[in-house]
């Protein structure tokens, strides 16, 4: 930061950009919850989230594996024809 002729401090462009970026950062020190949960509710929600995540991963793996197996079968059938 430098001082101009009137004595006021002048911010560099880099400092201004940094300021803008910082102003848009969420404050992670504050909770983003809109409702207050009991420990039991939080625990249950975490468990559900884990199972949903595992299910989604399982679904993707299943789609990938089935696709690979079907492709292999079709390639083998094409080579044999």
């Amino acid at each position: 930061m430098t001082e101009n002729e009137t004595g006021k401090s002048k911010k560099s462009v880099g400092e201004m950009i940094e300021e803008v970026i910082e102003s848009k950062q969420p404050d992670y020190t504050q909770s983003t919850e809109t409702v207050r949960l009991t420990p039991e509710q939080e625990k249950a929600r975490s468990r559900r989230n884990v199972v949903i995540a595992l299910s989604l991963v399982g679904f993707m793996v299943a789609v990938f594996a089935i696709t690979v197996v079907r492709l292999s079968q079709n390639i083998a059938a094409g080579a044999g024809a």
Partner: protein
Amino acid sequence: MTPSDNRAEGEAVSTASPRDYFDLMKPRVMTLVVFTAFAGLIAAPVDADPFLAVMSILCLAVGAGAAGALNMAYDADIDATMQRTRKRPIPRGVVSVANAYGFGVVAAILSVLLMALASNYLAAGLLAFSIFFYAVIYTMILKRSTPQNIVIGGAAGAFPPMIGWVAVTGEISLDAVILFMIIFLWTPPHSWALALYKSGDYAAANVPMMPVAKGAKSTRLQILLYSIVLVVFAGAPVLTGLGGAVYGATSLGGGALFLLLAWRIFRSRAGEAGSAEEGALYAVRAGDKAARDLFAYSIGYLTVLFAALIIEHAFGAYVAIPGVG
């Protein structure tokens, strides 16, 4: 809570665990679905890719579970009234009706899509239709309107072995239809035996099961008649060559005991002593013991029939019966 914390209490946030959602899928029904579908898949005259076969069975299980969740969502009012079902996740208040619908619809869509990828469009279409049949035709239309509800609705539970068969063959053959028919004919005596000793439960929930709508005597007669048709029809796989000596012997012995228990119900006063209002699935008053016995045995009968097919086709125990098939 800090002084600046002005968040609302999260009373509406669920405490449901993954286990509660699993219970929505009716795990006991899913077990029978997986078993019969596996039998259909193994008995089919095609060497299936083991991985794709397992995936097809998994899709069937999830699809059946999805149908179960949709059933529980729609029947939440009935389940809350009946002793037998009031401990299910929705009546207990741990899962909301909306969440159960959401869970059921998502599981149904994913299972059908994955089935189409793992097997073929016909199997996926049959799976989609069976979910629709159970959730809409049976649950939303038939169950509350006619005492023939489980006769027609039983078709939904009869699809799994046919879907297992179609998943590996790509077509609906006579043998696939026979497997379907065995479960279709098995459902009425099985369900009515339960309804006989739980009739008070069904009456309280205004569900027109046969003992409630037509009385215990008529139900006992119909159980006997359906049992005769079932036991005779269960011999059909022997005629087409689908079942060999092991299946034939199992069908004969198991069928004889089934008829004996059905005859005992017919001669008893089951369903007239009132229901076993308290207790678990098998809790029963003395007068209803015959009904309880057939209900319990019918599950074993179906299991043993399909197990015989699995043993014959998966473990090389198939011995053709001379002059038959």
